[in-house]
């Protein structure tokens, strides 16, 4: 009973609080932190495997907690609660609007993790996606609006893709319940279209390579706590989508696996490289997220190639996701912390230390969660891939370590050197939430060891320690040398790298429409032109449409169509019988 209540309350509580905002916005704002508590309680109190049926919702929905859900729910609830706490000190304008969007997105994020069927998942996914639009445009600056525009266009395309992919997979599998997913339907070989749709649809959220363009725009634009949850928790929703909808562990999809690995590897390296060129700290962090998500994409690809490896690789994904979530969350929150705001002395030293921990952890420095997660990922993946691929993986990891270290060096440099004073010192909640999160980052190696079958021994070996330390050392050394030679170190490439391609595409489509209508009219000079375009009308696409529409309204055309349809359908039917 209590389990069922918790499973429902986890997503219902934020929703209810959001609704309360209509009557009592102050109450909502006060209770912001507590909205996530039922979810957190569910992590600890609800045993894995329990579920509850809600027949009145949609076409009958099921909520439950499985191994994957448990892992993601933990990291998600923690980051949302801390972000809410942070927001209470940080957000000063438009609080109630922020609170409502924040709570709606939170509800969506919790709900999609708990949903045990496709339709429910889709519902909460959409709720989260659309609500976070409100978070992105919170500042209402032109940049925020532009980022919001790019974001919302991609979200809608993603929604439609996921919808079609989901309908296809659900129909082929004959069920919408994740639990009843069989493997037989995949072997029918009909799903290619849907897998493509799902890859792209969830890829938009997970920041998969050609679809990641919204991330570097949205993160700098959004307020800090929103960026933290966007990058820490919501970005993982795409990953969860893949894990839920694809036949993970049931069937092999080598072709798709290769695509996932390829795209993941590309993102793993290229995004980190591009991130090093960013002047804006949050854009830099966004690229780092894209890069880390690339590794997880690769892991999903490995499972798709080798279904048997799922039992080994999925915990690795969970560990890595947990590490990345906390670390990235702490990094984003630290953007609003300024060392110089703190009075000199012990407290400033402590702040400096705390500020340094997440970057080091993300760079995989020895004894941090980053090192543990990376080692585990390496071990997990190497169990299921060939020797040749193993070498490739090692190279990739090494390159990424260097790049990440570079990223983090640049980030720290910006934080310590260039960070301006805040207009007004952030509230205590901002500090406390950030501090708590950094604390969690510090103890997270222990947490991971407790919850997952992580072998600390491997990561404590000399080789592992050394491999985790040298990139940081190398980069720091190079950085220290180069840091004042701005011509070399600070190329500033715009955030949203490939966005211009999309713009080009839009132009191309417009151009194509213009040219094709001109072409059509030019080629079929007599018939088509007389039918569709009266003399003197322009060849513009819109006017072509409008003219055709008005032609359809002519009595002559209408009568012809009427009689034609009458004849055609009778003819067809008489032919048929």
């Amino acid at each position, binding site marked *: 009973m209590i389990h069922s209540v918790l499973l429902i309350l986890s997503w219902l509580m934020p929703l209810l609080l959001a609704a309360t905002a209509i009557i009592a916005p102050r109450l909502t704002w006060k209770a912001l932190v507590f909205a996530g508590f039922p979810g957190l309680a569910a992590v600890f109190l609800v045993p894995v495997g329990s579920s509850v049926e809600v027949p009145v919702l949609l076409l009958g929905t099921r909520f439950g907690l499985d191994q994957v859900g448990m892992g993601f729910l933990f990291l998600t609830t923690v980051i949302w609660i801390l972000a809410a706490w942070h927001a209470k000190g940080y957000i000063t304008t438009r609080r109630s609007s922020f609170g409502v969007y924040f709570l709606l997105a939170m509800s969506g994020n919790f709900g999609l993790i708990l949903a045990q069927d496709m339709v429910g998942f889709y519902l909460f996914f959409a709720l989260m996606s659309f609500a976070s639009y409100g978070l992105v445009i919170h500042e209402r600056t032109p940049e925020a609006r532009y980022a919001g525009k790019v974001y919302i266009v991609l979200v809608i395309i993603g929604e439609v893709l996921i919808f079609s992919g989901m309908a296809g997979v659900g129909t082929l599998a004959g069920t919408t319940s994740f639990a009843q997913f069989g493997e037989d339907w995949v072997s029918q070989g009909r799903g290619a279209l849907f897998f493509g749709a799902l890859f792209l649809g969830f890829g938009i959220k997970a920041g998969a390579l050609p679809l990641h363009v919204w991330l570097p725009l949205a993160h700098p634009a959004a307020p800090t706590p929103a960026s933290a949850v966007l990058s820490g928790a919501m970005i993982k929703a795409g990953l969860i989508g893949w894990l839920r909808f694809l036949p993970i562990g049931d069937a092999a999809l080598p072709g798709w696996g290769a695509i996932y690995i390829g795209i993941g590897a590309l993102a793993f390296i290229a995004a980190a490289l591009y991130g090093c060129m960013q002047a804006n700290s949050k854009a830099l962090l966004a690229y780092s997220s894209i890069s880390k998500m690339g590794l997880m994409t690769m892991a999903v690809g490995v499972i798709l190639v080798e279904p048997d490896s799922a039992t080994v690789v999925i915990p690795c994904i969970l560990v890595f996701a947990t590490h990345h979530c906390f670390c990235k969350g702490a990094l984003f929150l630290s953007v609003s912390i300024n060392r110089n705001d703190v009075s000199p002395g012990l407290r400033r030293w402590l702040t400096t230390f705390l500020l340094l921990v997440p970057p080091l952890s993300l760079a995989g420095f020895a004894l941090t969660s980053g090192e543990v997660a990376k080692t585990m990922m390496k071990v997990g993946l190497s169990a299921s891939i060939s020797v040749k691929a193993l070498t490739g993986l090692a190279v990739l990891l090494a390159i990424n370590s260097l790049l990440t270290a570079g990223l983090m060096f640049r980030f720290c440099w910006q934080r310590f050197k260039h960070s301006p004073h805040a207009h007004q010192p952030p509230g205590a909640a901002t500090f406390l939430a950030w501090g708590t999160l950094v604390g969690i980052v510090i103890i997270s190696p222990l947490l991971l060891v407790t919850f997952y079958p992580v072998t600390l021994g491997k990561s404590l070996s000399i080789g592992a320690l050394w491999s985790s330390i040298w990139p940081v050392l190398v980069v720091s050394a190079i950085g220290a040398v180069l840091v004042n030679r701005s011509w070399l170190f600070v190329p500033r490439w715009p955030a949203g790298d490939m966005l211009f391609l999309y713009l080009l595409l839009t132009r191309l489509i417009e151009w194509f429409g213009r040219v094709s209508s001109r072409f059509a009219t030019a080629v079929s000079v007599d018939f088509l032109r007389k039918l569709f375009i009266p003399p003197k009308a322009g060849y513009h696409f819109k006017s072509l449409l409008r003219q055709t529409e008005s032609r359809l309204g*002519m009595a002559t055309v209408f009568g*012809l169509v009427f009689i034609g349809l009458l004849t055609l359908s009778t003819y067809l039917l008489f032919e048929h019988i």
Partner: protein
Amino acid sequence: MAAATPSDILLCLLILSLALGVLGDANPFRGVIIFIVFGLVMALSWTRLDAPDLALAEAALGAGVIGVLFLVALRKQGEKDVSLATQRLRLNSVTIISGLLLIVFIVYLGALGVFSAWKTPGKGLVEPVYESLHLTGVSNPVTAVILNYRAYDTFLEIGVLYLVMLSVFALQPDEKAKFTSTEQYDRMLRSYARGIVPFMVLAAGYLLWAGAFRPGGAFQAGAMLGGAGILLHLSRPAMLLDMRGLVARLSLVAGFFSFCILGILAMLYGFDFLQWPSHLAKHAILTVETASTLSIGLTLTGLYASVERKLISPAIFYSGEEDNP
């Protein structure tokens, strides 16, 4: 089955050629005149097909009142006709191809129509209608169908007439008509009307009464009453009722309302909606018919009056700019 006689064939050819005249005649005014003749010939063919009720209705409504409305609509309009078309059709490859297509379609559909008509129709409901006729309170089977068996349809149909009058009200300008005394009335028309209108009212009453056992009924009687009203209006426009006045409104809804009330009464006494117990059926039917006749007659008169008012000479009836409050 009876074989068609040459006179049948002649009648059909006449109908078709008249239709061609209605559609094809270059002069719209003449087209309307032909349309009235067409309606009368249709009435003839319906008498031939054993449907005298329809013949009466068609002659009075289709050819009569509607024909007059068409005439009025065209009178001041003259040769100039209102057209919605913005683009004129020219002879080019498109129209030629479309025309050819149209011919193919029509030939095909015509053949189909012949084919479908060839099938001997089923027996329909002749037997059940006549079997229960003694329970309906009337001996004219058509009246039994429309006012007893399928009274619900007729109820709604009266609603359509009511609706048309409502629509006309809703589209009229807000000012009340202002009559000027300069209007010259046709003295001859006036005395003619004075003579004929009482007879028309009497005829309407007879048609109404006769509907129970021979051709006739509310619609035919109502159309006759409407004709009388139109005549009256033609001769003395100043006598026109204010159609939005209370009495006119009451008469307009009389048919519809009496249906409602009798239907509700039937339900209150434990019958179905619009069910007439057989011993009361005749009275019930006569009641709704009388009320409907009144409503129909008034509706038709009102329609004529409003069409004419709008179309003939607005300048006489309205001082100043029309429609601008």
